[in-house]
């Protein structure tokens, strides 16, 4: 990388890493996986830094979405992973509201990466369907159906958990 480019790229990473890390975490649901995803996306971005026109952050975000969906496609994805800390228990502190929140968060973590990515784009990033379709590389109809399916699956997962507890 040219020294001038490196300077700009360094400034970009320094200023935007927190925001990008948040997105990576929402996509992966895991700190280590999020760091890995972000590193990988930044590596690809550095590789194409000169050819990127427009907002580089948008480019990094797009690469992250595609990488995450691509990783999900790999046979390794979906297997159990070793984590530093135990996941929070659903019936942790005894209040229904907190239980509901944790239940929903766990359900989100259990969604397939593609469905979660669509929800992240639609509701976390608050993007219109056309932008989601552009980033995901699919039709608007597919975005709608994926969103619908994802919310439906979330409801099932939440319901499952509640039933299991009952």
């Amino acid at each position, binding site marked *: 990388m040219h020294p001038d480019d490196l300077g700009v790229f360094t400034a970009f990473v320094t200023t935007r890493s927190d925001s990008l890390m948040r997105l990576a975490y929402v996509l992966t*649901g895991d*700190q280590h996986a999020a760091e890995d995803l972000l590193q990988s996306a930044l590596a690809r971005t550095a590789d194409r830094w000169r050819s990127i026109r427009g907002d580089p952050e948008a480019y990094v975000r797009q690469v992250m979405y595609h990488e995450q969906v691509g990783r999900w496609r790999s046979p390794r994805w979906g297997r159990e992973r070793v984590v530093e800390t135990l996941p929070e228990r659903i019936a942790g502190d005894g209040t229904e509201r907190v239980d509901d929140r944790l239940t929903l968060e766990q359900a989100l973590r259990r969604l397939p990466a*593609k469905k979660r990515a669509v929800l992240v784009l639609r509701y976390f990033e608050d993007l219109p369907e056309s932008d989601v379709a552009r980033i995901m590389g699919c039709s*608007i109809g597919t975005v709608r159906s994926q969103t619908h399916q994802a*919310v439906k699956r979330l409801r099932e997962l939440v319901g499952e958990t509640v039933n299991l507890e009952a």
Partner: protein
Amino acid sequence: MTVDERAVTEALTRLADRARPVDPELLLSRALRRRARLKRPRWGLALAAAACVVAIGVVALRAHEQLAVSPASSPTASTEPTASTKSTARATRSATAPPATVYVRDIPGLPRNTIAQFATVEDCMPKGSPVHSMDGERLLPQYGTIKDYRWLVEAKDKLGVTRLVGSRKGFVLCTPAIRLVSYPTDPIFSYWGGDPPGKLALRGALSVDVYSVEMQSEINPGRDGDPSFLVVAGRVAPQATGVEVEWADGRKMTANVRNGFYIGRSRVYADKKGSIRPVPLSKVTAYDSGGQALGELKNVKWRSEGTTDADD
């Protein structure tokens, strides 16, 4: 517990809040190191690609010598090859014959494909078969595998291409992109005529088998974002040489016709809400080489890809 948009947004925001900030310097150094690793295998890929080219060349030469050889001019003649490539090769080979093109195995009713044309089928279905419209990872081999499909016809413009790839039962639309950076469209299967079991035979002179939107994913889309296209495609009488599409709003498009199949695409833009509302087709007309109308369809409505059957 209510799971609605608000609950999902709040849950995602809470998840994001759990992310621990990373040291930007460490992140940067790791990313740059990884970038160096990314660059390294490219030589390996280049060598592998060169080896593949040599291997394909050898295979093609052998195939040329042994079987499946016929003159390059033959595939445009008809949608239904009259004989297998093997027998054609025997019949037409001579000492003075020009270098011949190698074709893949014929499928009755589908145009003969060269190896290069068939490569676009493989490109279209990288996993080997059509996939589920809701889940690109879910293969649907019940709709056939690559070997059952052939490249039929394509619509090309300065922005890219959309291909019609079909089998005897149905078809998929393919709008390629650059893998890992921008994504090709998923191969979503549709039956010829829309309903199972899907028959290639055409009733009348013309059929609009799909009227849909295809998005072409790009690396660096302009201000308008990745371009979207209204795509009209289907079957047409073998003697047809032209298909003209007219929308209710007055727009017109000439589709590409080849061996009894046609496809056309026209750029379309989303409205302020980000939605694309396709206008009905007022008329689709097939013409022969003399400009004579062979048949027409009026008031054709939206007919998107996909199928609903026992699998759903």
